[in-house]
């Protein structure tokens, strides 16, 4: 059978189809999204969950690892026991998986009531701008969240209503745990080198030098994913950059700059660590999971990383594991990168917002903080170092010091929606030697100012 391609009719119908689709989508994409509905006023809010009838709360979280999973399971069960009319339908995914799917889930016609949303502009910021998350200000007043959490903690989940200003404005999320980037160290190795945990940049550098001379790997790092080095870089930056400047940069404020002298010094410092061989050889090829496992197995005196490694590292290293705040550099004031764990937020479309708010309150009250600490987490407030054991004592002491001294600075990659990818990518280039610090900072500056200019 011979066949002949039919061209004209397909074309004609295609044109017709195009016109039809264009007519259908005469609205711009996303036009039918969330609306900036009225926010709950304190006087309209009901805190009496028991009288709300049978409710199912659809909750998406990423508390899947060890102690995190245990504490949320315990708290969910306790909440259901307290309010038998509430059923919690929990969907838990790993951090990566949640990040990938939450964007679709939240724009769905029937989104979850409560979602754990990453603080940054690419996530919470855009959700706020699109009117998909509910303002928690009214609930904060009713439940007294403003007193419960210090401002430095609340600001990491606050945006202006248009989503453009980050770090102030309306509260959109409540976090359970604190998070900071510090210095994990191997007590045995540091001890055999005869060194105390470094307090200053000088001590840190001489410790790295001594470790290297003794044939040890000074700092363990696996950066195949491009984000882990952002934390090593952040520690280097914090040695020179005043923390208010870092805050302006991290929250993406207009006028902040990547090319200040202090930033150049910080970037040069990071580069010098690479050039001196203080970091894992070929770290851009080493997966992060391999790196922390290697550190736990005794490769590396230090590892710069977040408190999220605590449970895994402690399980493997036991009493050999130590945690210290990063050294204080020439800038003279302590600055510690961190914030909170992923905050829980309530979706605009939730039909059970009052119940959801009661759930958020329950997850973050003083009793919940105890449950979190018992399960090896770092409670965002009320951490009780005295009753903690093992490295948890050091972590909680460090966290309390950071919050007391107001030393917390936001993650640098929060600044713009694509800063996380760009910064990671540029750090790989800087460490591979394909660009110098000037080109590195110029690229960041350009992307940063492009964003802040159009974000008005």
């Amino acid at each position, binding site marked *: 059978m011979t066949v002949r*391609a039919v061209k004209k009719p*397909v074309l004609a119908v295609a044109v017709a189809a195009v016109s039809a689709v*264009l007519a259908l989508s005469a609205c711009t994409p996303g036009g039918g999204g969330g609306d900036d509905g009225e926010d709950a006023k304190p006087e309209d809010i009901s805190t009496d969950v028991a009288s709300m009838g049978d409710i199912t709360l659809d909750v998406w979280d990423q508390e899947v690892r060890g102690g995190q999973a245990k504490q949320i399971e315990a708290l969910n069960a306790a909440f259901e026991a307290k309010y038998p009319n509430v059923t919690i339908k929990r969907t838990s995914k790993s951090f990566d998986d949640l990040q990938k799917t939450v*964007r679709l889930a939240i*724009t769905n016609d029937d989104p979850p009531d409560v979602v754990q949303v990453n603080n940054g502009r690419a996530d919470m910021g855009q959700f706020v*701008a699109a009117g998909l998350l509910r303002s928690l200000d009214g609930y904060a007043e009713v439940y007294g969240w403003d007193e419960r959490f210090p401002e430095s903690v609340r600001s990491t989940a606050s945006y202006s209503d248009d989503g453009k200003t980050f770090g102030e404005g309306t509260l959109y999320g409540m976090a359970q745990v604190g998070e900071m980037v510090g210095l994990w160290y191997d007590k045995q190795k540091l001890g055999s080198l005869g060194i105390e945990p470094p307090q200053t940049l000088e001590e840190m550098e001489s410790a790295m030098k001594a470790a290297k001379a003794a044939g040890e790997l000074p700092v363990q790092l696996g950066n195949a994913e491009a984000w882990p080095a952002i934390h090593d870089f952040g520690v280097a930056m914090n040695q020179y950059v005043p923390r208010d400047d870092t805050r302006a940069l991290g929250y993406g404020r207009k006028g902040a700059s990547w090319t200040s002298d202090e930033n150049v010094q910080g970037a040069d410092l990071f580069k010098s660590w690479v050039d001196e061989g203080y970091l894992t050889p*070929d770290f851009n090829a080493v997966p992060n999971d391999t790196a922390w496992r290697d550190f736990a197995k005794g490769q590396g005196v230090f590892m710069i990383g977040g408190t999220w490694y605590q449970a895994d590292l402690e399980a493997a290293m036991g009493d050999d594991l130590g945690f210290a705040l990063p050294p204080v550099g020439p800038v003279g004031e302590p600055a510690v990168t961190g914030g909170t764990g992923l905050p829980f937020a309530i979706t605009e479309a939730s039909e059970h917002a009052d119940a959801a708010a009661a759930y958020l309150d329950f997850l973050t009250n003083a009793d919940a903080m105890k449950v979190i600490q018992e399960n090896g987490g770092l409670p965002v407030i009320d951490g009780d170092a005295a009753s903690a054991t093992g490295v948890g004592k050091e972590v909680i002491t460090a966290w309390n010091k950071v919050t007391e001294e107001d030393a917390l600075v936001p993650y640098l990659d929060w600044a713009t*929606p694509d800063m996380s990818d760009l910064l990671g*990518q540029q750090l790989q280039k800087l460490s591979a030697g394909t660009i110098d610090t000037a080109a590195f900072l110029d690229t960041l500056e350009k992307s940063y100012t492009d964003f802040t200019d159009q974000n008005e």
Partner: protein
Amino acid sequence: MTSEETVAVPTGDRVRDTRSGRGARRRPGPPGEPRRVAYLYLLPGFVVLTLFLLAPLVYAAWLSLFAWDGLSPGTWVGLQNYVDVLTDPTLRAPFGHALVLVVFFSFIPVVLGLFAASLLTRSTVRGRGIFQAVVFVPQVIALTVVAVAWKRILAPDGPLNDALRAIGLDGIARGWLGDPSTALVAIGLVGTWLGTGLCTVLFLAGLSRVDRAIYDAARLDGAGFFRETLAVSLPSLRNELAVALTLTMVAALRTFDLVYLMTSGGPGGATAVPAYEVYMKSMRQGDVGTGVTIALLLAAFIMVLTVLVNRIPEREDR
């Protein structure tokens, strides 16, 4: 457009046959022109095509004219997304990387496959069946498994570097996927490993149809192995060549899995490819307009290449 090639109707020859006994019904019209009702037969296929291919394509083209974060209302920007993708070096670079991958995923496997198939056809090798099965195995393994396995092989302390150090080549050993100068080539070579088996098996099938007498004649004329491959095998393999090139080139250009799992586009964007950028822009960075634009340009690019490659067998028919 591929849609034009897949939608085909019987030509007049066949339609006329069915009408021959019922002359009375014959309507005027140019000979060979099918009756209009024939278009009706196209309808079911066309509806499916429209729903699942044309409509999404048109919608994508529409989206590409907006700056849209996927959540809030988009802003009309006209062709600015296209200008950006074509002029911004960081958005253009992935297309260059994809072309490098075409060499490793497509050209090298085709040459190697041709060589292997000729060799296997020319001589009666013992265990030929086993060899055929072994070179084809990479095609059967899920790409995620391939990626994880090769990532391990290429790791700084992986088997490849162990082997290099064992023979004293410490200077060459490195983190292959962490070095901007080797990462793309490393992924390319995984593609070569993947594609060679497919090409070999395709070419073997093609060569089995070639009359042995032609080879005998060529040998009588004094043709050696290479001469024989070029003068006899290659011309008889035009159809297989087109299939092999199409499959491997499309695989190269739409590479996502290997990059996503092995390097995440790194180090420093050295292995960023269009399909990965589409994902990053639309799903991670909330820049759906740019992501869709890259996707459309990639689709157009693949379409043009496919049309070009499919001219290879046509020449044979003429």
